[in-house]
């Protein structure tokens, strides 16, 4: 019975260059159903959402039906609401400086010409909407002052209301990872709202990493892996383990861990009781030449650790011990960290790691200008020839240091920026997603460069969700959940599978002592 289906997607493929991000995927969502969409990074679930939102054009042959009617492909992004689709992304799309009511009515205010807005009526209407969903939101409050939970709730109510306004059918609401940064109590509230929306006849697609949440809120769930549809299951009859198994798959064990062994046993670097809002206390040690990976689901806090250790963000408490010296993390700043042989390569390549509008040579030369100086001053030629030498070693292509950094591909820019820090021969390297958006060849070059640095005695701390990278590159991996380390993997136990499994199980694990 097709009328029973709110959304039906079939034969959906999407190709990026040579890679097939989605391979003949199908998805069907019933009326009044909460449908989970699960998969690890790179499984294709965000590509699927982006096709539905009209960001991507699917390959020919795909079919999308909404309440039995064919939707035009590519889906027209601006009018997607009229088709009966509404999205709430992790970035909620609220304007913090405007009031709750203004945000609620943003769609109308932005598009309709309305020369008289009666604010008293608007506030009343908003209050009635919130009352219907049992929410205690003040229509006059400024959105920036709301808690993260209230903001998420507002964004969801807005999406549901927008659907009611424009579409005859109750509509399909797509929640794209709404929970990772919410406290448990907030998740409950959010679920209550989802149930209320479903009670009014809407359908919800709930995209998440978190198996437990999916099991709690959804009726059925679809699991994607490597762009392929793995299974659509009834949530009630599927165990936690069965979910994890489908998400990770067993075929991937071919990628086995590198099982790197370490010779030195004496800890060289120690982080003691690092804490910050939503994180910690975290303690860890590293021996000379160790590559230590940090991972977890998004929101678990692992990704902020490198920035805190470098002083790029201010930690609340904690100490960093480096050799025989110990210093408080709350007082450390990048200058100090650098002077002690600590370097940090952030994930935001053109926003925090390098300046795209300046030449590669200036970007690479910045930490060693003193070394490049002649008696009468710095010269562009010297900086450029220095960068050319480093670039040749690092395999930067094209190795033309006068090009702006933004002219290089992601992988080559990253090689150059890594070379910028390797040249100072750091004791401790802190890396945040070092191979994100990097092609396969460059990825191997970067791994080799890090291996060489570790062999030279550097300690390397890597925050990443690329499980394959962690398994290949690291001696040990720490898995985070809710701001704490919950599991440590090393030796033969360190495989891509094991890391993924630990991440998806992590929410049920208790913190290690």
């Amino acid at each position, binding site marked *: 019975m097709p009328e029973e289906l709110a959304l039906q997607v079939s034969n959906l493929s999407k190709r990026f260059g040579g890679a097939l991000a989605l391979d003949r995927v199908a998805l069907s969502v019933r009326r009044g159903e909460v449908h989970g969409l699960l998969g690890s990074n790179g499984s294709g679930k965000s590509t699927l959402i982006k096709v539905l939102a009209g960001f991507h054009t699917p390959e020919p042959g795909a079919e999308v039906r909404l309440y039995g009617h064919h939707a035009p492909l590519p889906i027209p992004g601006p009018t997607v609401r009229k088709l009966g689709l509404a999205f709430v992304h992790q970035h909620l799309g609220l304007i913090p400086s405007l009031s709750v009511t203004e945000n609620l009515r943003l769609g109308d205010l932005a598009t309709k010409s309305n020369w008289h807005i009666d604010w008293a009526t608007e506030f009343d209407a908003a209050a009635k909407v919130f009352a219907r969903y049992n929410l205690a939101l003040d229509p006059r409050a400024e959105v920036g002052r709301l808690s993260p939970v209230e903001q998420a709730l507002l964004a969801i109510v807005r999406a549901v209301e927008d659907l009611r306004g424009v579409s005859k059918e109750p509509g399909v609401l797509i929640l794209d990872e709404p929970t990772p940064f919410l406290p448990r109590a907030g998740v409950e509230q959010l679920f209550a709202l989802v149930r209320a929306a479903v009670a009014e006849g809407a359908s919800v697609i709930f995209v998440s990493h978190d198996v437990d949440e999916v099991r709690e809120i959804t009726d059925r769930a679809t699991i994607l892996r490597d762009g392929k549809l793995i299974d659509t299951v009834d949530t009630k009859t599927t165990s936690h383990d069965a979910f994890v198994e489908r998400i990770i798959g067993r075929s991937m064990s071919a990628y086995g861990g590198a099982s790197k062994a370490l010779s030195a046993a004496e800890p060289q670097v120690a982080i003691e009781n690092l804490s910050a809002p939503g994180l910690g206390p975290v303690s860890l040690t590293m021996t000379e030449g160790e590559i230590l990976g940090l991972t977890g689901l998004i929101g678990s806090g692992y990704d902020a650790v490198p920035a805190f250790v*470098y002083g*790029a963000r201010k930690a609340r408490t904690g100490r960093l011990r480096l050799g025989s010296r110990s210093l408080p993390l709350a007082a450390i700043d*990048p*200058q100090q*960290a*650098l*002077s002690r042989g600590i370097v*940090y390569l*952030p994930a*935001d390549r053109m*926003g*925090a*790691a*390098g*300046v795209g*509008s*300046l030449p590669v040579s*200036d970007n690479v*030369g*910045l*930490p060693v*200008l*003193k070394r490049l*100086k002649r008696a*009468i*001053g*710095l*010269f*562009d030629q010297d900086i450029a020839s220095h960068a*050319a030498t480093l*670039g*040749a*070693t690092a*395999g930067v*292509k*094209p*190795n*033309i240091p006068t090009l702006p950094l933004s002219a290089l591909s992601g992988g080559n820019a990253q090689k150059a920026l890594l070379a910028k820090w390797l040249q100072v021969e750091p004791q401790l390297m802190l890396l945040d997603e070092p191979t994100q958006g990097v092609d396969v060849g460059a990825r191997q070059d970067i791994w080799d460069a890090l291996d060489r640095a570790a062999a030279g005695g550097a300690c390397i701390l890597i925050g990443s969700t690329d499980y394959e990278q962690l398994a290949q590159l690291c001696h040990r991996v720490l898995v985070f959940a809710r701001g704490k380390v919950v599991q440590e993997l090393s030796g033969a136990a360190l495989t891509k599978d094991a890391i993924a499994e630990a991440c998806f199980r992590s929410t049920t694990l208790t913190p290690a002592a």
Partner: protein
Amino acid sequence: MTTPTPQDYERRIAALEQRLHAFEGRLAPPTAGRMNTAFFERYGLVFAWILLILVIGYFKPDQMFSWNSYAAMLGSNAMIVVLTLGLIIPLTTGDFDLSVASTMALSSMIIAVLNVRMGWSIEGAIFMALLAGLAVGAINAFFIIWFGIHSLIVTLGVGYFINGVILWISGSNVISGVSNDLVNVVILTRFLGVPLSFWYAGILTAIIWYIFQHTALGRRLLFVGRGREVARLSGVNVVRMRAGALIASGGIAALAGVLYTGMRGSADPSSALAFLLPAFAAAFLGSTTLYPGRFNAPGAFVAVYFLSTGIMGLNFLGAQSFVQNLFYGGGLIVAVSISQLLRKRRPMD
């Protein structure tokens, strides 16, 4: 003959890879094709300057090709060069300083009041004027950095505040009779036929050029302006760089005030304020030339004299005084438009 060990092979492979990398480097996109446009980008303004002289010279050869016109023009616009040089320092670190012209007027008025009304020595008066300029820069820096207010707002307010101070200390009067010693060393004494003020401006241009181009400090200033977070994470003291740039611009604006006073032998409470726009126009026009895409000292130097040559020429052609506004205002817009084209019309930060 010994058999090669695995290490030998590895070494050979490594050597081959090195050569391959070097070769790939040389293969990469040809730069020769871009040479001509790059060359024109760099020296376009210089050519435009020469063209301007020739075109106006065609109509008014007597005045346009007379050395005396240029000697006077070079000397009397020197303080705009100095003012522009001060301005490009905070512009490089990403802050606007709209108070430079007011600081210049304040410096000029302090010299006149102390020297004429209160009988201070000219040296003491100049010292106090420069100190006042540095203080204005420090005040700007405090509000911009400590409070985190946008520099446009702070310097607009501080500039207007200073205008009030100037009217207050001068009693809204022109104060003339500033020591002739100052007038002598600024405008009356000539070297190679050109007043000394021009040479001061030239020396300062060389100093700023050297700092921007040949010191680590210059690179750090540039990184602070282009990527504050990148600079901070690379260990640059961003606060000190920004504060230093604003204080330097205050001090150099005060220096421009010294030249301005020396040029006229007097100080009036309002005329210096008219130099804000010319300085901005020259700073942005200068950033399209010589080191295109960067605020740079020689570019600013050329831009000031390009604009003042144009105005001089238009005066020779009998244009009225309003052309000055047309030329400077239009110059600013044209300059920024050109630099936006160089940046491929990406939104300005």
